[in-house]
């Protein structure tokens, strides 16, 4: 206390990176929950690294059919040349699993960017403008939300690509299909927050001072209403992978010559299973499970940490953000509960 004269009070505040979304939760968590969060972060980290460095890690190309010794051959069991065997189409399973990570990551990124932008924009407009625009948007969003997401994604995929397509065509088709499904969720959350924030004193005062609508919306409302988004983001990434795999499994995937996609490979392995060929289905399937598991573990931990009922007992909700998040658990099934 004696040296407060010259040193500013910065010491009291934790360093800025302690307040970053994931880091903050990591510091806040204890015991089992910290274990879940760390496990999730590690798995997701490995997935991202594999996806980025796929060209270096994969022994062959995703559409490579022949090596120096000629064709790989179809349905070869795991061997030294092909660690995980080859598929019915004669591709190397390991290579396609690795390249598949890249496709999955691209789809997640495009889907999330699109749905965050559109969802936030619509949520802001809907919450801020209110009235008829709000009502119509919400009715449509509710109708879409109640619909089986896979079916909606199928319809969207038909619209966008008529089914089959090239790498980027396929990635965009899958991503946009997923976006259509997600927008209602983002819209709901952002709108609820906007409605809450809108009535706060600082927005009123901004109005009195004469700030423009756009300025109020972005400067005062948006920045205060994005607290629950990291939770939904993780949950939606895992759903994006599952939807992509589901689309691929139903034959709406990306052509094997254009990119590797896990769901498509699983579809092709359906008949293999009956004849006891296990390596063509187990590995792409495990890849999906692991990635979804990793992302879900992060999401679950964030959700638990935001919900005082579920947080491992250590300290009460500190910030208003957490208190709000507690009223709006973002786990998919609970989203419905608060709607």
């Amino acid at each position, binding site marked *: 206390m004696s040296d407060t004269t010259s040193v500013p009070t910065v010491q009291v505040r934790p360093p800025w990176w302690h307040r970053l979304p994931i880091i903050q939760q990591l510091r806040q968590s204890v015991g089992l929950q910290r274990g879940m969060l760390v496990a999730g972060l590690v798995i997701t980290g490995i997935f991202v690294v594999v996806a980025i460095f796929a060209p270096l890690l994969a022994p062959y190309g995703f559409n490579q059919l022949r090596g120096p010794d000629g064709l790989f051959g179809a349905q070869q069991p795991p061997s030294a040349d092909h660690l995980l065997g080859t598929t019915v189409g004669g591709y190397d399973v390991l290579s396609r699993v690795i390249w598949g990570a890249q496709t999955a990551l691209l789809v997640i990124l495009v889907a999330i960017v699109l749905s965050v932008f559109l969802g936030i924009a619509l949520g802001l407009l809907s919450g801020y403008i209110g009235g008829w625009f709000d009502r119509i948007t919400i009715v449509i969003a509710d*109708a879409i939300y109640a*619909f089986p997401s896979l*079916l909606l994604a199928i319809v969207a995929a038909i619209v966008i690509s008529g089914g089959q397509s090239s790498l980027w065509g396929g990635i965009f088709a899958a991503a946009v299909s997923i976006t259509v499904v997600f927008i209602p969720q983002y819209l709901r959350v952002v709108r609820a927050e906007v409605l809450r924030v809108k009535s706060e004193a600082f927005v009123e005062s901004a109005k009195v001072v004469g700030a423009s609508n756009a300025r109020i919306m972005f400067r005062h409302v948006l920045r205060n209403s994005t607290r629950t988004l990291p939770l939904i983001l993780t949950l939606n990434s895992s759903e994006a992978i599952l939807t992509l795999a589901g689309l691929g499994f139903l034959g709406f995937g990306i052509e094997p010559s254009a990119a590797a996609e896990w769901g498509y490979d699983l579809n092709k392995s359906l008949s293999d299973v009956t004849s006891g060929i296990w390596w063509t289905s187990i590995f792409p399937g495990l890849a999906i499970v692991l990635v979804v598991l990793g992302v879900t573990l992060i999401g679950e931990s964030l959700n638990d940490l935001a919900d005082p009922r579920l947080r491992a007992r250590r300290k009460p909700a500190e910030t208003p953000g957490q208190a709000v998040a507690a009223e709006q658990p973002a786990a998919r099934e609970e989203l419905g509960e608060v709607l």
Partner: protein
Amino acid sequence: MRGGGFWRYLLVRFLLIIPTIFILVTLVFFLMRLTGDPITASLGDRLTPDQLAQRIHDAGYDRPILVQYLEYLGNVFTGNFGSSITDGRPISEILFTYGSATLELVIYSLIVAFIVGIPLGMVAAYFRDRWGDAGLRVFAILSYATPVFFAGLVLKLIFSVWLKVLPVAGRASTRTEIKIQGLDSQTGIYFIDALRTGSSAAVADVLAHAVLPALTLGLLTAGVFLRLVRTNVIGTLSRDYVDAARSRGVGEYRLVRKHALKPALVPIITVIGLQIALLLGGAVLTETTFEWKGLGFQLADYLAKRDFVAVQGIVALLAVIVAVTNFIVDIVAAILDPRVRY
């Protein structure tokens, strides 16, 4: 309190499903037609341009889209969804024939989900943050993280291919199918039909075929139920009245079952209503995995053939089912919990 208010609530909720269905049907119609007319989509590469134009004209797809839309709405209203393009079958017949197969699968899966999910959720809540809880939560997350068709493939590989104890695919063996076809009228629910043939072998056969698909789809849903029951029971277990009951000497088992689970049931039921959408999506994939000839299997088949009239019909029907289920769930929740009101 109940009286008039409840009936008004029921009426309002009922009226609310109409715009929902309307929006979904409209959305599906316009989205599907954005790609062009269904005839070109399914037959475009097989017919000459002249034949194609003739077929398009016959089916009325060259008229203004709004006229077609109004006609479509009218047809949907009277339950007429048209005929599929590839095999010419009326959509309503397809829906009826295969809908019962999907219904049967969904019922089996719900039974599995309830039996597995709810008790395990209670156990997880009771042993909160201890190892039992951790294990069950990993199970719940795994059941969510595993795509339903991959779970199906693995179960198939283990039980049908390696252990050879259960059939690989289909709803019944050929012999049972023939027996069921021999009945005067079929319900389409094979379990009931098999019972009516009076042959215990047929019943056993039908059930053996149902085990793997039901487990596949049921475990997916069980994970969701488990998480939900856990969260809600944890919430109620920390209430004062539970402590009060414990201090009165109420046993731990009774405490969880009667005092904690019951108040937690209302949110659970509400959410189960939302799960019907997930369940139907999962059914599409499960049916494809096990060649279970229901709506989902047909949907995937028509998708592959690019028969968008059939796709549109099936999708519209599923949308209606979801909307109606949500309505029923809202009503049940209102009856159970006097606080859920109007």
